[in-house]
């Protein structure tokens, strides 16, 4: 392991955090394991690619993808998931089905080639970090991950909406009995989680590239992050993302044949001692 590989692990972790933070918010509050989250990531990436290519602006690509995926999430929650609320198996099957549909539609529209979201000139090239020259774009990804963490932390701890979301993670029925329309909170949370998946898609699509099975790969990593960190916990998602990101780097460098085992082996061991993850709480 050299510094370059550690930096790769940390920047991958930043991307994982962006994707998994949305996943864990939805899982924590709505109790939905949204298996379409990876598909929303990929669709966000494709949206970002098309919009950024057409407009020539990476920023417009990000904004467009986040808005587009947020609207998609709104339709998914308000139009489909609300009808299976409280039925875990149906929710899982529904989100898997939606993931298949999104995948196939993406294949129709964008084809099977792999794309890379175009990035602005000032993010190209490398910067020197200690002894290594490191891609500027990956430094930007790290910054984006930190920014998302700070903004989400402020949202959850300093706004009434965030406090309601946290209360809902603890006891949604009681939030409703206090006179708060929990359905609205669900909708906002799902919208926010979806927008984060879209953001992740654009950011990830610029260095991991976009191709038809990219959704499943990011979904598996996000699941690991959320399971390690504990359902609904932002600090948990951050630490989980760092662990998974670094383990992924170690695995790829030192045990390439066992890359997945290096992530999921420690995860299984952790779950044996803390079944609810590092920051998990009982419902």
């Amino acid at each position, binding site marked *: 392991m050299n510094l370059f590989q550690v930096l790769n692990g940390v920047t991958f972790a930043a991307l994982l955090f962006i994707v998994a933070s949305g996943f864990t918010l939805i899982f924590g509050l709505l109790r939905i394991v949204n298996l379409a989250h990876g598909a929303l990531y990929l669709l966000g990436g494709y949206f970002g690619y098309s919009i950024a290519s057409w407009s020539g602006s990476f920023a417009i690509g990000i904004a467009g993808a986040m808005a587009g995926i947020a609207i998609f999430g709104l339709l998914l929650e308000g139009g489909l998931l609300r009808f299976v609320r409280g039925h875990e198996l149906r929710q899982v099957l529904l989100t898997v089905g939606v993931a298949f549909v999104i995948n196939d539609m993406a294949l129709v529209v964008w084809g099977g080639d792999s794309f890379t979201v175009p990035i602005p000139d000032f993010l190209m090239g490398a910067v020197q970090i200690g002894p290594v020259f490191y891609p500027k774009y990956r430094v930007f990804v790290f910054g984006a991950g930190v920014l998302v963490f700070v903004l989400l932390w402020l949202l959850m701890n300093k706004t*009434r909406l965030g*406090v*309601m979301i*946290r*209360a809902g*993670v*603890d*006891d949604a*029925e*009681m*939030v*409703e*009995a*206090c*006179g*708060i*329309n*929990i359905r609205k909170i669900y909708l906002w949370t799902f919208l926010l989680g979806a927008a984060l998946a879209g953001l992740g898609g654009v950011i990830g699509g610029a260095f991991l590239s976009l191709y038809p099975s990219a959704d499943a790969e990011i979904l598996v990593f996000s699941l690991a992050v959320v399971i390690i960190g504990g359902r609904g916990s932002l600090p948990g998602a951050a630490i989980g993302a760092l662990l998974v990101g670094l383990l992924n780097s170690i695995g790829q460098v030192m045990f390439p044949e066992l890359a997945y085992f290096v992530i999921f082996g420690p995860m299984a061991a952790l779950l044996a001692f803390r079944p609810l993850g590092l920051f998990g*709480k009982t419902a």
Partner: protein
Amino acid sequence: MLEVRDLHSYYGDAHVLHGTSLEVSPGEIVALLGRNGMGKTTLIRSIMGLTPPTVRSGEVKWKGETITGLKPHEIASKKIAIVPQGRRLFSSLTVTEHLTMLKSPRVKEGWTIERVFDAFKRLGERRNHRGNQLSGGERGMLAVARALMQDPELILMDEPSEGLAPVMVQRLEEVIIDLGKTGLGILLVEQNLYSALDAASRVYIMETGKVVHSGTTAALKADMSTVERWLGVHGG
């Protein structure tokens, strides 16, 4: 003000409330007594619109308007608040957040965070502690304070004294009596008979999903055979 008429509630196929009826007037503290498993909590949940149970017939009227079938948040917004069994505080929220969640600190009408901390000094001292870091008494106070922040006209209290030390039970009883004097209606479910009899002016006793006795507290105190029959350990 609150009228429950011939309510039948079910948990799945289990018929729990068999035509329960009761009333609470403005500013009245009414105790709802009965042994464990007689349907008191089911009744509270049915009034609040919480499911399960499902209400299959009968109605709940509030100020003349039928509220059966409304969502819990709609019922709460009509100024009915609940102090549920087991308190059900939010374990990751601080004391302050429990209160500000329900009303912006900028709102100065009705119950404000300052007024709560004035009424419950202990909560003010503990304002940055989380729901799961409070003692039993503080938890009970916070559950009541959370209900008050909704500026209710009626509070449904489900065993607020449960698990409290005798001195805290007494303190809570004083709080309830004081609240009753402000014109608030309270429906008080209690296991603790004497605490309920001190606070309430009228009493209902439930047995297997039905109201089997109703009357004034004074009359019940004078008639210990009824108490023994429906609430006594060996009763029946």
